[in-house]
């Protein structure tokens, strides 16, 4: 696969990590953004962000359910 080389030493902040995890919930991502992610994201931060967004996802559905039932 001919892909551009990522920049290995640049660490991503909180927002790029959250943005990558949020895109994963939809399941789509631009190739270039994915390559940037692969080069810059900290795996531990991605796991923590994944758990956090998972909890937010659950809370969001609970709120929607409460609104529907009200």
């Amino acid at each position: 696969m001919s892909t551009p080389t990522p920049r290995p030493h640049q660490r991503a902040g909180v927002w790029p990590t959250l943005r990558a995890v949020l895109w994963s919930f939809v399941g789509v991502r631009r190739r270039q953004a994915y390559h940037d992610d692969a080069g810059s994201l900290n795996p531990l931060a991605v796991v923590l962000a994944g758990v956090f967004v998972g909890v937010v996802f659950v809370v969001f559905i609970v709120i929607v359910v409460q609104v529907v039932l009200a």
Partner: protein
Amino acid sequence: MAAVTHDQLQGHQHGQSGLMRWITTTNHKDIGTLYMFFSFFMFLSGGVMALTIRAELFQPGLQVVQPEFFNQLTTMHGLVMVFGAIMPAFVGFANWMIPLMIGASDMAFARMNNWSFWLLPPAAILLLGSFFVPGGAAAAGWTMYAPLSVQMGMGMDLAIFAIHIMGISSIMGAINIVVTVLNMRAPGMTMMKMPMFCWTWLITAYLLIAVMPVLAGAVTMILTDRHFGTSFFNAAGGGDPVMYQHIFWFFGHPEVYIMILPAFGIVSQIIPAFARKPLFGYASMVYAVAAIAILSFAVWAHHMFATGMPAAGQLFFMYATMLIAVPTGVKVFNWVATMWRGSLSFETPMLWAVGFIFVFTIGGFTGLICAIAPIDIQVQDTYYVVAHFHYVLVAGSLFALFAGAYYWLPKWTGHMPSEFLGKLHFWCSLVFFNITFFPMHFLGLAGMPRRIPDYALQFADFNALISIGAFGFGLSQLIFLVAVIKCIRGGERAAARSWEGAEGLEWTVPSPAPHHTFEEAPVLR
């Protein structure tokens, strides 16, 4: 080519020979082969159980087996197919292909790999041997719901121990795969260059490590309820049988993805090869698989709408389940987009992969229908559900396994599989599969319950048709056996790159792959 040395080109393996070679082997290819032969044996065993079930259901009334034995057959068919056939088959593929795909010389923990496999035959003996103990095999359904599972004879104990052993095997296999993928990739094989099959297996391995202990905990609680005076699930002692269902399905739903994500990986290797185009949306696929893995932990109670739960709970699990369809839909879209305007050819592996997309999508849609709580309460425990999960597990997992087997058989055996036999196998399987399982939707909607040996007269015609289809499907699998044996014994010599459009490191080593490969890591641009 740095991948192999002269000695390895001769296919030499060193050490024990004969039976002891297979017992003591730490070679990933040998262990992969063992996994696949084991899973095929279990597939045939589970298949014989399925055909006995269908023989009984050919017409109303009791003709072939007694109801008690019928319940044992439905239970054991599920356990054998899930834990003995589908899961080990995917682990076999992982063992054979992941080191070859990432340029590693072997799996990370080669001896643990041997132990992972050799735990399986004792588990299979416990499981299949339980038919011959007093009271017969476990008969509570493959889900082993309490209180039935708390009350049965020693066949249930044997099933519990078999599940413990197979769980340990799966966890060890998963740890091996995670460490191999993360630590043993060839220089230059970055995560984002990794073949999709390795990505899907990496995420599957995490799922296995997360949920197999949950299943082990659930069946251990059943065991202590049965023999050690606890009352986790015994209402008479203050326990809660519904808690068992929650614990089981917290394992059970990610398990569904454990059985389908590697299938997605296989299909994602095959479609680009025969469309002669790179996989469309590789990044999307990786993200979609990760998303499915996370979301799969938040949907378990959609298996329990009829058990009884508050309206808020029903709505929560209904919404969450419908949302998980989004990343799954992304994948189907990407496969179709990969084929779009590609230079397509339809050799046997591609036929199976395209057949997979077509039939698996039907199973996905019926899953969405089952996700709607008011509908699910109507179709719960009917043949509609049986139709749904067979469309996912047979047309999904099994078709992908056949696709992968025909795709990589040249690499495994050094010979091209017979196109005639492969295509005959495909068309017979596709036609008989649909004759078997499509009418089950109608039976389910008409109210025929699952797990019964007898039924009302109005269901007779469809059941006769289904049984004919099932025997056709079962016998069609013998074509695969013939095709594999023929391929092992001889046939057209396979080139290193056996398929014109195939990409990846596995196609840089000779066919058959030598016993040792990539002792020196390959160089990736």
